[in-house]
């Protein structure tokens, strides 16, 4: 519809492509050897969606087990494996690959580049990540352990020493865990290097740093954060592997090592890691909200500054995960204050999104619905974060369901919601088909209801004293009803995700044709055909403002007249 308004000088051939028949094996081969950023992006997303289903099934099994007191659905050993694998999978095999996959597809398009800077490194990174995931799950088969059965890591995604050292975890499961994360970590590093090099040296003419779409900015910041934080974890994992297999003593307190050292290493990586997951979806929100409010983003420079600020501060807050370890009051105070500091740039972002919506002609289509829910849920998650940042409060609630509620509010309420928003928003570009709005609305509302049933309630059982990582509880604790509600909510979310998968399949087959620019948007990716051809752009585009397509569509009132 909107493409007619773009004067693209007749260079665009809009006739549908003829579907030549390529034998299945050849087509598969093409995908395996591809170095095209768009195909790799799709592979990342498919890979991540697959593992999302796996880790989701693990979560649902845990919720069946916890739905009523004294339940015997899962053995305790199996329960431990499931929460470990669930966390590890969701963070490393779902969150990171899906976000880096979307970035892989979108970033070169948004900056007017023909591909990522290092296409072969890009493919290498994807296959490393994929291999890491397979290695992790291979532990179910190869990781025979203490219990003599097929076994998997069962020490939590943080793998604290000494539980993760040899005397307490005898089989090779922890080695699988460490190696899998080292391997997939290398993959992530490759992608991060690629994204930074691409954005800094391959932007098209006229795209100054302060004209880059915010999604690109956020991915730039995230990639930098990844480069700084992944390898310290790798170093710690190498030490752990040596401890376990060659008798070194880094984390073995009895021989003079320090288990505390592992905890520091883990969270020096771990806290920035949670920002690695959330910053890209800030970028997604900053793309979608303006388009669906029909207004330019409010306070662009402040958004950029806040993103960089959050990344910096997030490097200095890790010990808020360690208040109960027993630190000096000076360290406690430092980490309380530095953690609260994150609230300032984060608050700036929330206000700017609200100000963007304010007074706009808002279109509540599915991507926008997910984004609006994101804003409010992320706000609440940030507030419980500030509560937990108060050391005495944390002494009470550390390792309780309150903490689980806090971080799932971010991980699901903010990140997963916006990942869905991103898929609804960019699916038409990637496939040429629209996702169904009706199914999308069903997906959104069910997911929203399920989410709140589950994670709002978790705050309460947490405050009532229910610890995390327990496989069952007695009936007289009074947690039974609430846990049942939590489990019901989990299943509603599961149904919503099934509707989403159904939507993808149905829309791929007979979705509405999308055209180039179904949302009447303003960034460069919408100037290409859907899906974009190999190498994206025939002639290198030239931009004059932050919204190049706005300028083209409104030559009488272009943005560059106003931007300084």
């Amino acid at each position, binding site marked *: 519809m909107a493409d007619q308004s773009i004067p693209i000088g007749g260079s665009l051939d809009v006739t549908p492509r003829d579907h030549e028949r390529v034998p299945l094996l050849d087509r598969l081969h093409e995908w395996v050897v591809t170095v095209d950023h768009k195909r790799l992006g799709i592979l990342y997303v498919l890979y991540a969606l697959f593992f999302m289903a796996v880790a989701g099934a693990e979560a649902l099994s845990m919720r069946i087990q916890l739905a009523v007191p004294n339940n015997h659905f899962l053995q305790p050993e199996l329960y431990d494996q499931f929460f470990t694998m669930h966390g590890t999978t969701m963070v490393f095999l779902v969150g990171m690959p899906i976000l880096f996959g979307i970035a892989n597809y979108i970033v070169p398009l948004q900056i007017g580049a023909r591909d990522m800077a290092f296409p072969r490194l890009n493919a290498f990174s994807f296959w490393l990540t994929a291999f890491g995931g397979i290695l992790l799950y291979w532990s179910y088969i190869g990781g025979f352990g203490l219990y003599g059965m097929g076994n998997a890591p069962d020490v939590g995604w943080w793998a604290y020493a000494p539980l993760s050292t040899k005397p307490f975890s005898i089989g090779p499961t922890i080695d699988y865990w460490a190696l899998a994360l080292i391997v997939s970590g290398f993959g992530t590093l490759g992608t991060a290097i690629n994204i*930074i090099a691409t954005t800094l040296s391959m932007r098209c003419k006229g795209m100054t740093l302060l004209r880059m779409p915010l999604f690109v900015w956020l991915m730039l910041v995230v990639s930098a954060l990844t480069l700084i934080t992944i*390898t*310290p*974890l790798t170093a710690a994992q190498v030490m752990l592997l040596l401890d376990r297999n060659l008798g070194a003593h880094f984390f073995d307190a009895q021989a003079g090592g320090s288990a505390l050292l592992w905890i520091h290493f883990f969270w020096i990586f771990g806290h920035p890691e949670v920002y690695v997951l959330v910053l890209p979806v800030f970028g997604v929100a900053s793309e979608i909200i303006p388009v669906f409010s029909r207004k330019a983003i409010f306070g662009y420079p402040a958004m950029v500054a806040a993103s960089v600020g959050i990344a910096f501060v997030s490097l200095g807050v890790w010990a808020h995960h360690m208040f109960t370890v027993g630190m000096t009051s000076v360290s406690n105070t430092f980490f309380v204050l530095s953690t609260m500091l994150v609230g300032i740039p984060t608050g700036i972002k929330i206000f700017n999104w609200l100000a963007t919506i304010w007074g706009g002609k808002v279109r509540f289509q599915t991507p926008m619905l997910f984004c609006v829910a994101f804003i409010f849920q992320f706000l609440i998650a940030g507030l419980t974060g500030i509560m937990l940042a108060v050391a005495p409060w944390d002494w009470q609630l550390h390792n309780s369901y309150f903490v689980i509620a806090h971080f799932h509010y971010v991980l699901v309420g903010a990140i997963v919601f916006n990942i869905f928003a991103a898929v609804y928003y960019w699916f038409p570009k990637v496939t040429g088909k629209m996702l169904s709005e009706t199914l999308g609305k069903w997906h959104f509302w069910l997911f929203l209801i399920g989410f709140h049933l589950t994670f709002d309630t978790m705050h309460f059982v947490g405050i009532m004293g229910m610890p995390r990582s327990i496989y069952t509880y007695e009936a007289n604790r009074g947690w039974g009803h609430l846990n049942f509600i939590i489990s019901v909510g989990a299943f509603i979310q599961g149904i919503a995700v099934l509707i989403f998968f159904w939507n993808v399949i149905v829309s791929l087959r007979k979705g509405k044709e999308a055209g180039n620019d179904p949302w009447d948007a303003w960034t460069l990716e919408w100037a290409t055909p859907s899906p974009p051809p190999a190498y994206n752009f*025939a002639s290198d585009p030239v931009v004059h403002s932050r919204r*190049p397509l706005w300028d083209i569509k409104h030559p009488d009132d272009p943005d560059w007249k106003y931007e300084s």
Partner: protein
Amino acid sequence: MDSHSIAAQTAEPAHLEHEHPAFLRHHFENVAQQREAATFGMWLFLLTEIMFFGGLFCAYLIFRNWYYPAFVAGSHTLHIWAGTLNTTLLIISSFTMAMAVHAAEVRHRGPLLRWMVLTIVLGCGFLCVKAYEWHDEWVNHHVPGLNFSIQEFTHTNPAYPGDKPLAPDMAEKTQIYYSLYFVMTGMHALHMIIGVSLLAILLIRARGGAFTNGHIAPVENFGLYWHFVDIVWIFLFPLLYLISRHQ
């Protein structure tokens, strides 16, 4: 086509029209951009390496603070001549590598090959000395977890009569020193092995003239890597070999 035209269905033919050197990949605009991106990528990679070794150095600092006497005793069992020899070899190899990059820049294939071969030889020399040292640790029962014995540290080291023998629990802590010694020199040696292998591959390609036609980015960026690995050793040498040698 006016200057606002952005999209086109067939991107590839448009790009093929203009002339460019064979090594310029299709997705770059020009040679300068390609070189800039590659160098930049290498620096980013080195940043991750700094963070990796930074993690190890961090652990080193903490344990050295706690168990200083054990670190002194452990350090005094290393061969200072071997460490010095290796430091020299690596510094020279950095020079030969720099000369290789220069030779590529001025497009002299002969000197390029010679400097690369020299660098490989020096790198292998380093690894041989390192292997000798590791073997020596093994013979002297200094490998934690495999054949460690604290015997040596509960008695006076004849080479350092000024050092007092350690109490048994501090003598145990020498294992921490050796754990660090092996992980740090081991990770460094791994980087050396990878470096020598990569250089061998570059050498084969250089024989065909791949880097003396203006396409120097691979040699140049490999040089960055090689110098980085050298610098790590420049830190490892004093930290591991020279603890309190003045006594």
